[in-house]
């Protein structure tokens, strides 16, 4: 504790009531998971099947919690100090960048260690049931999760040094963690049994960025990443190697940024293409197709346009047309790649697998983008002090809310539209899938609307964009990923009916069910999930309007 950063960070975090709340929720969840499946009929499976299943459920819940909690601490750590001006003060002290970095890592690791300590009774309960190996399963599980937490801490801190806004840091960190956990394993899913040689090796190493294959191997499962086909210990070893490389890279990159250069940013020159030379104008017209040129002088807000909506577009990075086009372009490329894969042979990718991947991609886009865009809609204005300026305009609460919702809604709509070609290919390959595709699209739209309204409603309760964004991420992650834990324990730990009921709350599961994705085809989630989401949307709208009205009226 000689490092003052550790003391300040750790004490600061532990004093925060949110940390205590997270610890309590975390502990209660793990205890709940174990208690739910604890044998009540005084019979224990001698094969250890039940305890193994309980351990798996515990492990997945634990991993989900880590993925949700770690970025919330690491992503805001540096950027908040930058905004408050304390990072400049710290860097002006004799403390070295390593002291600052290690102090923050140690403080976050301290919280993670505390959570791990709180999880021990639940793990011990699994062990006490018998059939679970301490050396082969529980210890490696803890090691992998500790390594993953450290990796995401370092990645989050690096992103935090690069960000200037807390919500942007949170969004980028959660997106990166999601990519590392989930997207990294998708190529291997394609490659397994179909690719050999170097391409297969590349896919395997890419999958090693995710802790999933290693954890599955510890649990002795194959499943999504076919870890069982690997040589013994290879997935765990690969992940350990890759995560250490990522940690070392992240540490070096963060340390390189922790100097006065962090604040050595020139003021914008305010360059405007309209006033540039003819050559520059011609070049930018070609490169940005003129309309998407970010340096083009924007036109005045139109008479029939909601000014708040335009303001949101202009102030949000992803609202600016050139960024929007980049994202849409990326979505189109992914969609076209899937189309190409499907066109080359249905034995490589069948339509249902492709549909499932499309749904997962779109759901991930919605879950990653929406809280980042909508979480700060109200809270960000209050935090920056611009809310009282909005209150001083004749704009009604309805106009403000509508403008803000439309700005995020349009971005989400364009992203969803960009992935439509994939569905078109599905219909070309198998016209009988039309009903499934339509239901999946309706589900996705409802999911996007719900995510938007829920994030905006959460935003109206907070005075800090970071808190609102993190809460919105947490809420959607618990709803969309947390409830999938029940699906993971289907058949053995949880009965069909219970899983069916839990999945009805999950719009991602409903979409996967609509598209008849493997493992979800048996659940009849539609239209009940649509109704639940519709009621949720209605509730969010009422809350949002009431809160905004309260915030705009005289105190």
């Amino acid at each position, binding site marked *: 504790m000689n490092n003052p950063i550790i003391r300040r960070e750790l004490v600061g975090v532990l004093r925060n009531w949110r940390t205590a709340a997270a610890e309590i929720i975390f502990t209660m969840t793990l205890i709940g998971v174990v208690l739910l499946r604890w044998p009540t009929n005084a019979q224990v499976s001698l094969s250890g099947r039940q305890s193994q299943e309980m351990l798996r459920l515990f492990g997945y819940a634990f991993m989900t919690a880590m993925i949700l909690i770690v970025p919330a601490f690491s992503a805001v750590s540096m950027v908040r100090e930058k905004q408050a001006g304390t990072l400049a003060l710290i860097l002006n002290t004799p403390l070295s960048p390593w002291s600052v970095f290690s102090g923050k890592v140690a403080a976050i690791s301290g919280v993670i260690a505390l959570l791990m300590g709180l999880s021990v009774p639940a793990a011990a309960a699994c062990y006490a049931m018998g059939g679970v190996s301490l050396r082969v399963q529980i210890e490696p599980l803890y090691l992998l999760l500790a390594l993953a937490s450290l990796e995401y801490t370092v990645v989050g801190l690096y992103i935090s040094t690069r960000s*200037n*806004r807390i919500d942007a840091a949170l969004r980028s960190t959660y997106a990166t963690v999601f990519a590392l956990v989930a997207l990294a394993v998708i190529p291997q899913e394609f490659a397994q049994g179909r690719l050999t040689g170097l391409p297969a090796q590349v896919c395997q190493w890419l999958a090693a960025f995710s802790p999933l294959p290693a954890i599955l191997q510890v649990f002795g499962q194959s499943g999504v990443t076919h870890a069982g086909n690997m040589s013994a210990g290879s997935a765990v070893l690969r992940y350990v190697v890759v995560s250490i490389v990522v940690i070392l890279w992240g540490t070096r990159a963060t340390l390189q940024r922790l100097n006065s250069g962090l604040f050595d940013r020139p*003021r*914008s020159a*305010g*360059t*405007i293409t309209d*006033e540039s030379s003819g050559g520059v104008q011609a070049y930018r017209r070609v490169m940005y197709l003129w309309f998407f040129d970010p340096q083009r*002088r*924007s036109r*005045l*807000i*139109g*008479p029939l*346009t909601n*000014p*708040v909506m*335009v*303001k949101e577009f*202009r*102030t*949000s*990075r992803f609202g*600016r047309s050139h960024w929007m086009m980049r994202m849409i372009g990326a979505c189109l490329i992914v969609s076209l790649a899937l189309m190409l894969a499907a066109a080359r042979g249905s034995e490589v990718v069948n339509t249902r697998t492709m549909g499932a991947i499309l749904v997962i991609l779109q759901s991930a886009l919605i879950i990653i983008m929406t809280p980042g865009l909508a979480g700060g809609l109200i809270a960000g204005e209050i935090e*920056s*002090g*611009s*809310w*009282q*300026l*909005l*209150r*001083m*305009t*004749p*704009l009604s609460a309805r106009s403000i809310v509508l403008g803000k919702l439309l700005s995020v809604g349009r971005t989400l709509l364009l992203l969803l539209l960009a992935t439509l070609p994939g569905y078109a290919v599905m219909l070309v390959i198998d016209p009988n899938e039309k009903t499934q595709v339509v239901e999946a699209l309706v589900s996705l739209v409802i999911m996007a609307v719900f995510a938007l309204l829920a994030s905006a409603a959460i935003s109206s309760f907070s005075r800090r964009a970071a808190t609102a964004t993190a809460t919105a991420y947490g809420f959607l992650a618990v709803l969309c990923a947390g409830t999938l834990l029940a699906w993971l324990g289907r058949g053995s730990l949880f009965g069909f009916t219970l899983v069916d009921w839990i999945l009805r709350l999950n719009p991602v599961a409903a979409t996967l069910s609509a598209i008849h994705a493997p493992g979800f085809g048996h659940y009849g989630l539609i239209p009940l999930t649509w109704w639940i989401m519709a009621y949720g949307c209605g509730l969010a709208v009422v809350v949002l309007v009431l809160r905004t009205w309260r915030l705009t009226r*005289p*105190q």
Partner: protein
Amino acid sequence: MNGEYVVQTENLTKKYGEFTALDGLTIQLEKGKILGFIGPNGAGKTTTIKILVGMALPTAGWAKIAGIDCSTRSREIKKLVGFMPDTFGGYDNMRVHEYLDFFGAAFAIPRAKRQKRVDEALETTGATAMRDLFVESLSHGMKQRVAIARTLLHEPPVLILDEPANGLDPTARVEMRHILLNLAAMGKTLIVTSHILPELARICNMVAIITGGKLRAFGTLDQIMHDVREKRMIEVQLAAREDVAKAAATLTAVLGPQAQVQESLAEGMVRFTTTQNDAALVRMLAALVDAKIAVAQFRDVPQNLEDAFLSVTQAAQAPDKADGEKIAAGGGRA
């Protein structure tokens, strides 16, 4: 509306539970005047401003701007008031002209007029060169100019500026002073809060001093100076240094043994403080002359707004003062 006052408050009171943030504030302000609204932190300035701009409702009393009640017709008040809070309220990734265009559109200024209004506001505040810069890249002084430009967009008759000179360098402060004086010359009525009292004293026609939620002084600067000070400092410059002790003794005899008379042999000067009026000062000067002391100068040391402010706030804290006693004259009318 009586047609005379642009800003009026009557017995304006705001309570938060048991805490009284504002207690019976009564002021009036004519068109084209600049009111310096001063007080220590937590005095009730921001509460008053919030009520005036329609963001807070008074517990008792009323406030009107151009005859419009600030509580019941807050939507109309928004069009009559340009409010600059103490925080800038900027947006990232937005250029200055986009920022002003947004607020212009929010105030429903027609598109055809908006560009002209933005250009005029930028010109008035000397911020034309900043129109293409991103607001987050502006210096503090630049932001203050843009913030004032924002308040001017919808051409409000009343501007309420919370700490416009706060954090500005001397040059920017002088420029800010010119901007505010120009606005007053344009016929705008300004309410300006500031902790930089010498700066405020140079631009304000009227001053209101508020402490503990109560109005302690209100009037023109001269009125405040004249009425607020309880003790005047008088300097007596003597023709001969050797008369210093004799002059001090003479003044002590007139003022009484409790008088605070300071001798400065090096300067050949005697200073004393008194609460007595001009007639008493005439008697003191006569006593010196009668004592055959050659007096080169006998003058009232001018006090500034800071002195007045300190005098008022100290008087307000004095235990022998009635809690609600207003120290200054001016009667809440100007």
